């Protein structure tokens, strides 16, 4: 009899626990803990980069797609880059190295991403304020125009509106998809 009572008591407790905690709510709490734990070590890095520029839409536009190696001239975003890759100079494909200022004035073209076959709008910004980097020099010219069509030319130094005209390296920022009409 004592065992029966114990069984019934345990059964009531188990059913109450099951009613009060769904698997979904358990997974949601587990997810919150996991995401929070993953985010904590990143916070100082995010704060450091947030001061330099507004977040580029690269991560949004290309989320989850294979990107390739941004330290190579053949990297898809570099289809019309002329200069030293910031990814080899202490920055990345879309951020300037510390101590340099990204020129807001730039030249803009398109590159096809082999991962999805779409043409993306690429902004080739120079990072200004330090002497030239000297590593990963690339010269690609897809849809680039001669110097007499200045807005589409990549031979020019694009450090306009910056404190210094000295160029260190170049980035290739994805602005979005070149939607056709």
């Amino acid at each position, binding site marked *: 009899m004592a065992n029966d009572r114990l069984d019934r008591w345990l059964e009531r407790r188990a059913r109450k626990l099951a009613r009060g905690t769904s698997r979904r709510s358990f997974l949601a709490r587990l997810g919150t803990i996991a995401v929070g734990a993953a985010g904590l070590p990143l916070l100082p890095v995010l704060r450091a980069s947030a001061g330099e520029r507004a977040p580029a839409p690269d991560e949004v536009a290309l989320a989850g797609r294979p990107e390739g190696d941004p330290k190579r001239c053949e990297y898809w975003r570099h289809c019309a880059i002329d200069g030293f890759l910031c990814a080899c100079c202490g920055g990345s494909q879309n951020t300037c190295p510390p101590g340099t200022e990204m020129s*807001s*004035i*730039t*030249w*803009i*073209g*398109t590159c096809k991403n082999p991962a999805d076959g779409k*043409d993306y*709008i690429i*902004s080739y910004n120079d990072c200004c304020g330090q002497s030239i980097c000297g590593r990963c020099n690339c010269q690609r010219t897809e849809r680039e125009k001669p110097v007499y*069509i200045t*807005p*589409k030319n990549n031979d020019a130094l694009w450090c*306009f*509106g910056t404190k210094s005209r000295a160029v260190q390296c170049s980035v290739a920022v994805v*602005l*979005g998809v*070149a*939607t*056709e*009409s």
Partner: protein
Amino acid sequence: MSATVLAAALLAAAPAEPSHTPAVDYALHCQGCHLVDGRATPGSVPALSGTVARLARTPGGREYMARVPGVAQAPLGDAELAALLNWVVQRFGPVADFAPYGADEVGRLRAQPLVDVAAARRALLGGDAH
């Protein structure tokens, strides 16, 4: 097959540059200097934001906007350029009662280059125009 027909067939077969939406054309042909929000870069590039509305309401401003070098020389057809200009006027105006540019009008205006852009701008907007 005559030479004319052959030439027409070859032209039709040639891969054309893709036609983009006005917002994409702005990014590709204007944003490099005028930035995404049309603000000025002092000493280098004049503002679109605010200025476009003033020009749209100023006699001669409509013509000026279609004749400035960046517009007149953009690698776009007249119809695409008119659509881009209309988008710019509303994006950086907006100007509610603005009669949209037509392709023929833009074609006619872009064929008349501005020899002295700064002087034309000062005449329309006054001495502080930049």
